[in-house]
């Protein structure tokens, strides 16, 4: 059997406790990462987010907030803006939408993961971290159904266990790891 090809996109979802966890994850990304990283962190809808600017200094890749129809580029980290869902439109383009909140959240994780699975099929690595919501479970299911990889932060270790635990129960996973090991495995995958 030939080795599994590398993912062509990494999608990440997180909520409560996510800022700290993302700081750790983004610090682990190599400067020559050959894929884009798209992130949904649940955010309050009614004010601008400073998350991209906050995490940019600790990451060797540029960290940006998404704009509609922005080109999808390797080696960039893109956050969903407050009050918009972030979606993969095609292999080269992102899209935003104001469609209804999912599990009370906009941005939400499910739409990002599902759209990545629809465009990139098996070539998706989805990572679901700490969070106190059920969002992400459907997305993880969609990624796995398309043959992509799903990694979950170990619920026992996560600051808020609900989100990875719900996804694990709903859709299973290809790996369930403490954050540090998850970061390590990510580094190894692309080195």
């Amino acid at each position, binding site marked *: 059997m030939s080795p599994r090809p590398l993912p062509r996109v990494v999608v990440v979802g997180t909520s409560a406790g996510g800022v700290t966890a993302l700081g750790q994850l983004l610090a682990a990304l190599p400067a020559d990462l050959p894929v884009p990283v798209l992130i949904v962190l649940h955010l309050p809808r009614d004010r601008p987010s400073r998350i991209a600017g906050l995490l940019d200094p600790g990451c060797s890749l540029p960290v940006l907030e998404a*704009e*509609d*129809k922005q*080109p999808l580029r390797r080696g960039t980290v893109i956050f969903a803006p407050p009050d*918009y869902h972030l979606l993969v439109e095609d292999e080269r*383009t992102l899209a935003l939408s*104001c469609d209804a909140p999912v599990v009370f959240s906009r941005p939400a994780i499910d*739409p990002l993961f599902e759209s990545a699975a*629809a465009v990139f099929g098996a070539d998706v690595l989805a990572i679901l971290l700490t969070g106190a919501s059920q969002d992400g479970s459907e997305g993880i299911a969609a990624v796995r159904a398309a043959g992509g990889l799903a990694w979950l932060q170990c619920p026992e270790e996560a600051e808020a266990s609900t989100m990875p635990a719900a996804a694990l129960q709903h859709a299973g996973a290809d790996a369930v790891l403490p954050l540090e090991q998850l970061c390590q495995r990510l580094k190894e995958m692309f080195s």
Partner: protein
Amino acid sequence: MNESALFDLELKVLLEAVYQRYHYDFRDYAVSSLRRRMRQAMQRFECERLTDLQHRLLHEPEVFAQAMQFFTVQVSEMFRDPGYFRVLREQAVPVLRTYPSIKLWVAGCSTGEEVWSLAILLQEEGLLDRAIVYATDINPTALAAAEAGAFAIDRLAQFSRNYLQAGGTGSLSDYYTTAYNGAVFDRRLRRNIVFADHSLATDTVFSEVHLVSCRNVLIYFNRELQDRAVGLFRDSLVHRGFLGLGSKESLQFGEHHAAFETCSREQRLYRKAA
């Protein structure tokens, strides 16, 4: 062919069928969000497959009418993104004031929140009497709601906060009366608003305008259709006319970016280049 590719094929065929049957053209809508909304429509109309939904849409016009809410998206607030309206007041109004009469176009006005906001702004700036506001959308139900100018009472607190942050000079309650759990906006604001059916996908320029406000509409279009719409705006605008977009929409990825210069990057207000 896997499930996901089959779904996309069914979607393509459905959009073509809807176009030929009803002349609504969603073929160049952004597929990433349309997929989700079509899945919701399948649930709503109890269809197992997209092909089943297509069957119902083609054979039951009333189902198509109800399904419009899944093809288009109605999400807005009055004075949504208050900073945008503040920039309109500070940067566009002084220029608009120099014309003896002005025309403004709210493209994709949906249920009208932004139209009524703009009318209030123009009223407070003493410009409403010499303005014509075109409020257009493709969704007849949304357009009727926009024209009625009635909004649920529980939304008014947010609208009022936005209004004040947007630089409103009075109180939002000066402009509406409440009845039956709803707030109805003053018909006098409506006197110079023209509500009309217009499609950014299939219709053309209908007037020369001084300002186009088209916010969170282009995000539902793919890049080709965005280019068509922005081209229409460029061709509709007077020399040095204004274009306002949604807070995460940008001209920089489209083919007409050189036709506009930026007034406020933060609030996405542009001006037709000389």
